[in-house]
Each structure stands twice: as structure tokens, then as C-alpha cells.
């Protein structure tokens, strides 16, 4: 179902006009209310009067993740604290977190875009949705929560963890939707299998997965293991949280809520805007937010944008699957490696469970690249040669995809840590001894 047909199916021309008007308002807001933005614009010699149309956006300075850290905690707010009704923060693993303040209108708009997502996944007021994203500073739990309430569905505010109870309530409350990270969904799938409760006792039909990059292969794995349709919900704490974009029933790209979050693709090296269809770094400008609007925020996510009308009827721009976050990229023996590439290969190999862990180290000035994988129960053989053949096949497939031969290490079943939130799949030991 399309939640807001007026904007989701708006003509491209009307959309650009609307975006232009909203951008101008946002630039005025930040220029007059937020000193760091005003200074940057002055340095570039521009004022709000120079922004009249959405195409003028390229005149504006970029905002980086580092800027958000530098102005920690409230330096980038464009409203007085008295207008801020909620704070969220990213789970930054290093140093200070990134803090985002929301006004009441910001929360309303977040619910609006969230409602578009859940409607696009086929969920509605008759459906029970289990929200197993973490509740708290992380935007996942409360973001999904607000979205389900807005469409009139029934929310089970589970948060993450306590897997046995998750499964019990999923069955007893008849959850039709499950919202969590794809890695936690896999964990739940295994636990459901172990619980000896038959699939028929669950009403689950729809997975709302996001908060970490995942591949098409992972989707197929989740759909077959859980017997559901698995949809991507996209979001970033800095921009608003889950709800920046969503897939539709066509599962052919992530529709962005571009009347609120204007996307651009740039060359990550030069900062130049790239034409539609080209891959590069995704940049967002929030054009309706009040609390902490962001101008040209560099996400570090690598993807491309498509502007053709979708078969679902929506005209909103679609984003390809995120190739990886430029932050996640590993450079091993000079080769760029994204964990998502490893994941797509692992999920394709019949004998393997879709779990992996990458260990990178530097020994005697040479990078080592180890991938730990689990073999599915029935493929563990009594013959060493068969196990070695599996190892060789994985190494060969990875070599052809990423151009680098990893050491494959077969590990015991369930020994790779299952994540209950965002999965940690890489240990790069080089940082500590180089």
C-alpha cells in the first residue's frame, strides 16, 4: 500500500520544485540559527539568497561525520534546546557518539516516513509487529515503534535480546511483522528452528530489516529460513533514523523519502556531483527537519540512484543496495575488500551457514586475511579431503570476486558469535601493531 500517494507518486518536476522550496527554507533556518553553518557559507561567499532552486544545492558546503563529533553535543542544533523533545545518539565505537536532537515536528515527520516504509512492506492496522531493534539511544527501536503506531498496527516493543521470550511472544501474540537487524533475524531463525515450535504456529510474513548493510544473498537466505518476505528499511541516525528509505513489493531498489531527505551521489575523492546512475558516495540534505538539519551530509555509503518510475507506482528515486560503507572497506594487500562481498560469496555456497568472521592481521609485514565460516550440519564429513575441497571452493570463489585469496578456516557449528544488534564481522588487528 502507498501511504502518501501525493508525494510518493509526484511527478519528477513537481518533486524538484518542492525540494527547491524546502531547501531554501532549510538554508535560511540554519544560516540564521546555527553558527557553524553560517560561518561555512560565509567562507564560501554564499547567503540564503543564492539558493533558489534544488540545483543550487551544489553551492553548499559538505557536512561530515567529523563535524558532528567536533560540535558534540549540541553545536549543530538549529533550534533552542527548549524546542528539542528527544535526543538520540549513534553507537559510535570510537570516541564520542554522534548526537541528534528532534523537535516535536521532527518526530512527526519521522513517523510519517516510517509509516511509508511499513505500508510499502504490506503491513497495516490489522497487523502485529514485533520490534526487536534495540530501544534506547539507538534510533532503530523507537523509530520502528513510532512507524508501526502511525500506520495503526499493534507494536510489540521487544527490543533486542532475550531470544526465547522473543520466540514465545512472536508465536503467542501472532506477530506478522518482525523488525530487527538482518543478523539478529538470522540468529532468531536458528533459535526458532531449535525451539521445536513448528513454522505453522507462527504468523510471521514480513521482515523489516536494516541498520546494517546486507546483501541480496542474505535476503534469499532469510526469506527461505523464515518463510517470509524480507524488506530493506534504510536510515541513518544523523539524518533521522530508520525511514530515510524503504523497498517496495518489487524489491528492486530502496525508495528514498526525497521530499524530506534530498539525496545526491558524489565522487568521494573530488566531491563532484555525479550524474544519475553512476556509483559514488551518497550525500543527504535534510530539507524539512528543524532540530538538527544537515546540509550535504556525507554518509560514506557507496551506492547509485535511479530516477525511473517504479512498477509499484511510486516515482520516488530508488537507491541500489549499499555496496558498503567506505568506512567498512578493508585494504588488504592493496586490494579494496568490502565485507558485503565476502557475505555474498558465503551465502551462495550451499554447504555454508550465512555467518562469517573476517580476521585481518599483519605478520612479517604481510597482510593476512582469514575468513572463518561454519559448515551446515549435514555437510560435515568423516573425510578430511571433502572438508578441504569445501575450503578450496570458497577460497576460489572469493578469489574470483575480490581478487584476493583468503585463508578459509572452518569452525565448529554455532561458534561464530551471533549478534543481537549490529553484527561485528571484522577484526582488523593491524591497527594495533602497525
Amino acid at each position, binding site marked *: 500500500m502507498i501511504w502518501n500517494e501525493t508525494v510518493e507518486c509526484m511527478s519528477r518536476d513537481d518533486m524538484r520544485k518542492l525540494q527547491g522550496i524546502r531547501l531554501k527554507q532549510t538554508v535560511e533556518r540554519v544560516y540564521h540559527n546555527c553558527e557553524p553553518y553560517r560561518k561555512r557559507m560565509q567562507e564560501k561567499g554564499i547567503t540564503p539568497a543564492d539558493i533558489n532552486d534544488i540545483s543550487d544545492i551544489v553551492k553548499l558546503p559538505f557536512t561530515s561525520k567529523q563535524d558532528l563529533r567536533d560540535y558534540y553535543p549540541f553545536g549543530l542544533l538549529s533550534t533552542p534546546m527548549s524546542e528539542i523533545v528527544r535526543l538520540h545518539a549513534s553507537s559510535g565505537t570510537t570516541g564520542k557518539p554522534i548526537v541528534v536532537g528532534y523537535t516535536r515536528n521532527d518526530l512527526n515527520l519521522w513517523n510519517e516516513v516510517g509509516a511509508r516504509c511499513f505500508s510499502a512492506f504490506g503491513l497495516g492496522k490489522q497487523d502485529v509487529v514485533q520490534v526487536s531493534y534495540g530501544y534506547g539511544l539507538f534510533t532503530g527501536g523507537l523509530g520502528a515503534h513510532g512507524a508501526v503506531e502511525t500506520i495503526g498496527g499493534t507494536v510489540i516493543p521487544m527490543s533486542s535480546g532475550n531470544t526465547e521470550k522473543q520466540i514465545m511472544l512472536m508465536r503467542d501474540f501472532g506477530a506478522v511483522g518482525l523488525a530487527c537487524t538482518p543478523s539478529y533475524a538470522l540468529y532468531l531463525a536458528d533459535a526458532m528452528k531449535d525451539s521445536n515450535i513448528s513454522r505453522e504456529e507462527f504468523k510471521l510474513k514480513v521482515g523489516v530489516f536494516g541498520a546494517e548493510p546486507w546483501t541480496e544473498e542474505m535476503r534469499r537466505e532469510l526469506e527461505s529460513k523464515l518463510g517470509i518476505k524480507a524488506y530493506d528499511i534504510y536510515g541513518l541516525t544523523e539524518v533521522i533514523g530508520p525511514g530515510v528509505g524503504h523497498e517496495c513489493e518489487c524489491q528492486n531498489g530502496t525508495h528514498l523519502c526525497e521530499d524530506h531527505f534530498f539525496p545526491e551521489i558524489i565522487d568521494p575523492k573530488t566531491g563532484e556531483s555525479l550524474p544519475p546512475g553512476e556509483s559514488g558516495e551518497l550525500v543527504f540534505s535534510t530539507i524539512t527537519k528543524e532540530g538538527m538539519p544537515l546540509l550535504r551530509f556525507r554518509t560514506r555509503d557507496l551506492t547509485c540512484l535511479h530516477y525511473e518510475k517504479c512498477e509499484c507506482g511510486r516515482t520516488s528515486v530508488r537507491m541500489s543496495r549499499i555496496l558498503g560503507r567506505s568506512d567498512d572497506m578493508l585494504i588488504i594487500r592493496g586490494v579494496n575488500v568490502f565485507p558485503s562481498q565476502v557475505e555474498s560469496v558465503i551465502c551462495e555456497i550451499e554447504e555454508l551457514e550465512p555467518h562469517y568472521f573476517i580476521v585481518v592481521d599483519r605478520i612479517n609485514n604481510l597482510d593476512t586475511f582469514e575468513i572463518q565460516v561454519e559448515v551446515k*550440519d549435514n555437510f*560435515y*564429513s*568423516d573425510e578430511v579431503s571433502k*572438508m578441504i575441497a569445501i575450503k578450496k571452493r570458497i577460497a576460489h570463489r572469493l578469489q574470483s570476486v575480490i581478487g584476493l585469496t583468503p585463508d578459509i*578456516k*572452518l569452525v*565448529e*557449528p554455532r561458534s561464530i558469535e551471533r549478534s543481537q544488534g549490529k553484527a561485528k564481522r571484522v577484526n582488523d588487528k593491524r591497527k594495533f601493531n602497525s
Partner: protein
Amino acid sequence: MLIKQLSIFLENKKGRFTEVAKILGDAGINMIAFTVAENSDFGILRLIVSEPEKAKEVLKEHRYAVNSTDVVCVQCPNQPGALSKIMKIITEAGIFIEYMYAFSMGDRALVILRPDNVEATVNVLSENRVELLAASELFRL
């Protein structure tokens, strides 16, 4: 004449076998024979036990990767040349042995064979009057 052998995948880590032995011991399961094939990062423990189904179940409960395979147990006199005769029969029948392990006690020797074709092995050995041990006999040793 087929014997169920369990194979268990173990990472090369300290204490893995100790744990398996404890789990089986606690479940009252007796080990009759075993061998470990190892390489740099893992080992495969092949094991013949008194109650293979029960052993498989308890090991699975402890999240071990356990599978079972049919193997053949040959009994021959514990004297020079005895095994060579049996191997000749197998080779001439065109059967390939994936792996084997053996133990001798007193005047007899027992050899566990894992051939590529179990049925053909049983047939050709029976035709040549080689003594094969049934699981029940092996467990009584």
C-alpha cells in the same frame, strides 16, 4: 555387518577432545575405537561407540557437528601376512579405501575399513570367507 561410525568435526583447540569424552562418559556411552584425522585447523574424530544413536543425540545437544557413516570391521589372525590377504581381495574387487584403523589384541586383530563402496566390500569379503564383525559383537569386546 555394517557398523555405524560417528564423525565429529573439532577445531584444533585445547580441550576439545576432553569435552567430547566427558559428554559421552556422563551419558554412560562407551568408546570402542576411534581415530583422529587432523590438519592445520581442524580434526575429524571418527568414533565407534556402544550406542551410536544416543551418542549422536547428546553430542548434537552440545552443538557438535556429528554425522554417521557405515564402516566394516574385519577380524583376522594377529600374524604376519593376514591383513595383506584381505587387502588383496579388496583391491582386486576394485574397491578404494578412504581410510582405515586397526587394533590387535592377543591372537586376533580387528581392522575398521571405510571403503568407497560398503556393500561391495561386505559382499566380496563374505564370499572370500573373511570374518566380519557385527556391531553387537564389537560392543561386547
